């Protein structure tokens, strides 16, 4: 019994808790990608760099606040700096839209042109970010590091395995819950939100009903920038901030959006968790878990790990390929890419 509990705690500590946090970060990212796809009808490859840009502003503001002695008790100062990052990212998105995407909208460019344009913005914004903050790893988390420490858990429960929950993980899950709830409330119950859904569903009919397309596009960018900055900051708090990592995040984020059904907000959330849990579950070394369940003796020398963690991106890629082959519209039946 106790060994079974230990096995469960092990899985909880290395898969469930980090999976929930990582899944939430992917879900917020994928929600932004999916909204741009639904309303502006293209896959925005620049999304990872928007996350990076917003996070960079949060980090710089955090550093300034820290040196000014500002802090909010046990919580990371970055939360206080978040609005600055959000406004900066909104500004960036609206500028990009005004001076880049608007031109292609007026040309009625095909989605593939948009896609390539978004890759262009990705490189430009990415370069700008590395120019400003540098390519190095940055750690900007402060305050209390853990909600639950592994050592305390062991001492209090008497189990030999510990369960740790980082503050960043707790904040990530709570914030995601709150933000996603807010986005769904906005889309389903407000006039503007409904007009966005109508525009995404049937552009011509929405125009006929008097929906202002410029306004819808603007609001979509604003929501995307907010989501991207929050997702990027939470990811940076949880792991650490490094510009290149945000470029790599694009793959799991797109995988999440497509697995869930691109253009479908609910699908983006589900897809985020599917990708996160698959990634962790497939790259986790199960040796200790099996040792608790079956005893040490019968297990060989192997780690019982399906795939090395170096290949974690291959997991999202595999899932992406499988979904595109088996059910191209995704779990929640979005549009096909």
């Amino acid at each position, binding site marked *: 019994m106790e060994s079974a509990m230990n096995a469960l705690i092990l899985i909880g500590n290395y898969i469930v808790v980090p999976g929930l946090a990582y899944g939430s970060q992917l879900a917020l990212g994928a929600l932004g990608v999916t909204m741009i796809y639904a309303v502006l009808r293209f896959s925005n490859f620049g999304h990872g760099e928007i996350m990076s840009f917003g996070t960079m502003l949060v980090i710089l503001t955090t550093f300034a606040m820290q040196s000014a002695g500002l802090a909010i008790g046990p919580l990371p100062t970055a939360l206080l700096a978040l609005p600055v990052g959000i406004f900066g990212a909104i500004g960036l998105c609206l500028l990009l839209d005004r001076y880049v995407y608007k031109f292609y909208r007026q040309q009625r460019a095909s989605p593939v042109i948009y896609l390539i344009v978004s890759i262009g913005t990705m490189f430009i914004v990415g370069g700008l970010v590395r120019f400003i903050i540098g390519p190095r790893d940055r750690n900007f988390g402060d305050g209390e590091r853990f909600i639950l420490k592994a050592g305390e858990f062991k001492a209090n429960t008497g189990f030999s395995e510990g369960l740790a929950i980082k503050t960043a993980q707790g904040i990530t899950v709570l914030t995601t819950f709150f933000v996603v709830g807010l986005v769904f409330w906005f889309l389903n119950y407000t*006039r503007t939100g409904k007009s966005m*859904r*109508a525009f995404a569903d049937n552009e011509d*009919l*929405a*125009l*006929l*009903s008097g*929906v202002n397309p410029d306004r819808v596009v603007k609001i979509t960018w604003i929501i995307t920038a907010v989501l991207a900055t929050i997702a990027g900051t939470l990811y940076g708090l949880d792991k650490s901030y490094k510009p290149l990592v945000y470029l790599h995040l694009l793959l799991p984020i797109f995988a999440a959006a497509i697995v869930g059904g691109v253009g479908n907000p609910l699908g983006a959330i589900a897809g985020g968790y599917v990708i996160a849990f698959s990634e962790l579950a497939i790259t986790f070394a199960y040796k200790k878990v099996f040792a608790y369940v079956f005893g040490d003796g019968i297990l060989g020398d192997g780690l019982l790990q399906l795939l090395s963690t170096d290949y974690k991106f291959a997991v999202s890629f595999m899932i992406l390929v499988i979904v595109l082959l088996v059910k191209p519209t995704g779990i929640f039946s979005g549009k096909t890419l």
Partner: protein
Amino acid sequence: MSALVGTAMTGGYGGADILRGCTISANSGEITVIVGPNGAGKSTAMKAMFGMLNLRTGTVLLDGKDINGLPPQNRVQCGMSFVPQTQNVFTSMTVEENLEMGGFIRGDDLTDTIEEIFNLFPVLREKRAQPAGELSGGQRQQVAVGRALMTQPKVLMLDEPTAGVSPIVMDELFDRIIDVARTGVAILMVEQNAKQALQIADRGYVLVQGENRYTDRGAALLSNPDVRRAFLGG
């Protein structure tokens, strides 16, 4: 007095003219039907009156006011409403949300109008919380007409409302359209099912190659031997 009149309309989508001086008018509380062979410019005439196509010459008057040059959105504000032939509902949104979007331009309280439309199309009340994409063809057309009525228009234009629905559903839809006309709305519609449409029409236009060929009461056109032989299959 006619609610909507398009006089001597000439124009097309660039290149050759599709409309060649055709004139169409619709009266309040009446059903006006445009019929004719394929390529006669039926839908084009209606789209021209809704501002979806620029006329080279000719005028369109709404309640005696010249609305030439106004884009479709502004014509909606002036009291015109249009139901396209295809993709005329928001498939991912519920029936009620479709109606709300129909009244988006109004910005005031929509509950009374939605209630009127539920009284007109009782089946929509039952399906109010269901996505419009899950409804049958006939119900979907009712959502489309309901959406267009949300602005409380003076003129309702329907582009082949019965395309692709069964004969029973077609009769039902025509009954509903008669009900709408009784509320005082001017109805202008293009129809492939010419015989059935002319039976409910107060006035019918037969267009051929962008020109008026016959104009008369619906019943009179139906009993006109020339029209029957040439356009209604005997």
